[in-house]
């Protein structure tokens, strides 16, 4: 993995000077977020990780996952997204620094991890890494059974998770006969059945077709509506902008966190993180340059939204 040297400090104010402007893409302050507790669900403080015999993959990471907010993690291949998600969910132990869960430090022993895993669940990129039982229903029941719940409760949780992911009809199907998108949803159902406060997904839309992606986003939105905090790693900048409240970008100079609309509108930062500019921001710039979009208004989030401006009476806003 060759990394370009960072071309200058990236910690200054956002170059478009819009720091004080109303934040595009952020939910209104009275959104579902404000109801939840104020302490971050998960927090890494000064965390670093190195794999045995390798250099440090991530270093000096400060990352807070705030309840009710959707967080997107972006970065180039090999920048350490998966590593960071594994740190956040306790699968890896930071070589230095700390992990806090709901404000309390997580001890990486059996009991500490047990507690953490009741709070946060990781969904891996490849669903086949998570599906190892013969049928979908069995697989989803694996986690709740390990929680030591009575059978009725396990059954209820499985039903609920399958319903949430809209795969109730697949309960008795063997996992290997499912399509990719179905397996993906079955894997998420396995995590959801643990009723985690936070759900962490590694590139959940990779390999899904655009409509499958839409559907998955809809499901995640529903889970958020039920109070689950969702974190995802992705390479798709436009998707992140559209979906996330907060963004975290892995750059060679370290992790940059902040409002998704602001960070993903900063071309230099995107370049540093191995990403490309978003269509949404480019379109918003064009619209603003021609007086079609007010300065404080959010950019169009999808091509469909952008197309509104091509209509005879441009619908400012949307």
């Amino acid at each position, binding site marked *: 993995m060759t990394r370009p040297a960072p071309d200058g400090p990236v910690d200054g104010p956002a170059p478009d000077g819009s720091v004080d402007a109303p934040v595009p893409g952020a939910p209104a302050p009275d959104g579902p977020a404000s109801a939840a507790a104020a302490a971050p669900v998960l927090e890494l403080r000064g965390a670093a990780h190195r794999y045995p015999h390798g250099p440090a993959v991530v270093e000096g990471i400060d990352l807070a996952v705030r309840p009710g907010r959707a967080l997107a993690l972006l970065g180039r291949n090999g920048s350490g997204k998966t590593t960071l998600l594994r740190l956040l969910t306790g699968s890896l132990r930071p070589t230095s620094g700390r992990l806090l869960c709901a404000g309390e430090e997580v001890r990486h022993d059996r009991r500490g991890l047990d507690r953490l895993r009741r709070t946060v669940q990781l969904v891996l990129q490849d669903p086949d890494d998570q599906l190892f*039982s*013969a*049928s979908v229903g069995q697989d989803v029941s694996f986690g709740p059974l390990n929680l030591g719940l009575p059978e009725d409760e396990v059954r209820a949780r499985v039903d609920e998770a399958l319903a949430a992911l809209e795969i109730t009809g697949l309960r008795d199907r*063997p996992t290997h006969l499912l399509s990719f998108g179905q397996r993906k949803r079955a894997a998420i159902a396995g995590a959801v059945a643990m009723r985690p406060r936070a759900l962490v997904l590694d590139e959940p839309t990779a390999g899904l077709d655009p409509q499958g992606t839409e559907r998955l986003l809809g499901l995640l939105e529903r889970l958020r509506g039920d109070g689950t905090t969702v974190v995802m790693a992705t390479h798709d900048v436009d998707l992140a902008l559209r979906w996330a409240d907060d963004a975290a970008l892995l750059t060679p100079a370290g992790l940059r966190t902040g409002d998704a609309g602001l960070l993903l509108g900063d071309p230099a930062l995107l370049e540093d993180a191995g990403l490309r500019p978003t269509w949404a921001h480019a379109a918003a710039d064009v619209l603003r340059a021609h007086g079609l979009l007010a300065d404080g208004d959010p950019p169009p989030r999808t091509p469909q939204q952008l197309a509104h401006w091509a209509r005879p009476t441009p619908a400012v806003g949307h």
Partner: protein
Amino acid sequence: MHIAEGYLPPLHAVAWSAAAAPFVVHGARALTREVRENPGSTLMLGASGAFVFVLSALKIPSVTGSCSHPTGTGLGAVLFRPPVMAVLGTVTLLFQALLLAHGGLTTLGANVFSMAVVGPWAGYAAYRAVRALRGSLMPAVFAAAFTADLTTYCVTSAQLALAFPDPATGFAGALAKFGGIFAVTQVPLAVSEGLLTVLVVRLLGQSGRGELARLDTTGREDTTDAEGTVAR
């Protein structure tokens, strides 16, 4: 447990290599024939070998609470037949010696003899015996894994006893010494491995993927299974 590098005196090392060689050569012939008749089987055999290697690298909890590695030779022998297991087991042992510093090159012959020859044959025999007595699949699988595991350790104990006879009581005393040490640790492990193998086979059966066709054809010689591959 493998015999470590340099543990056996030269004469013993050579003798055990000579004892294992015919089985491995026979296995290599069987494998070559298989590949010639069915070119696709190279990849299936590679997968089998990788499976055996990875299985032997798994950590499983033993009944006593300690952790250890399964030998995997019983399941391997039932799935892939003892001659092929002689080759795959040798490859596994070679990899363990060079990649994990487990076992060794001078002791390869002795380890092959116990783990890749005697263990698989004994496990396979146990499997066939239970099946012949109209036992159902799961007890047969348990018997295969348990027997393969245990005979491997018995042979290892004998090998060590031959190399290091007891100063006072000779071979018999040494056998009691090594066998005693292993019995404490290995009998529970063999039970664990047997149980686990049963669970694995049951899961494979439930998933209905046809992999178990291998097991069902083992009763009839020389029929190719659904994937037309390794079993012979």
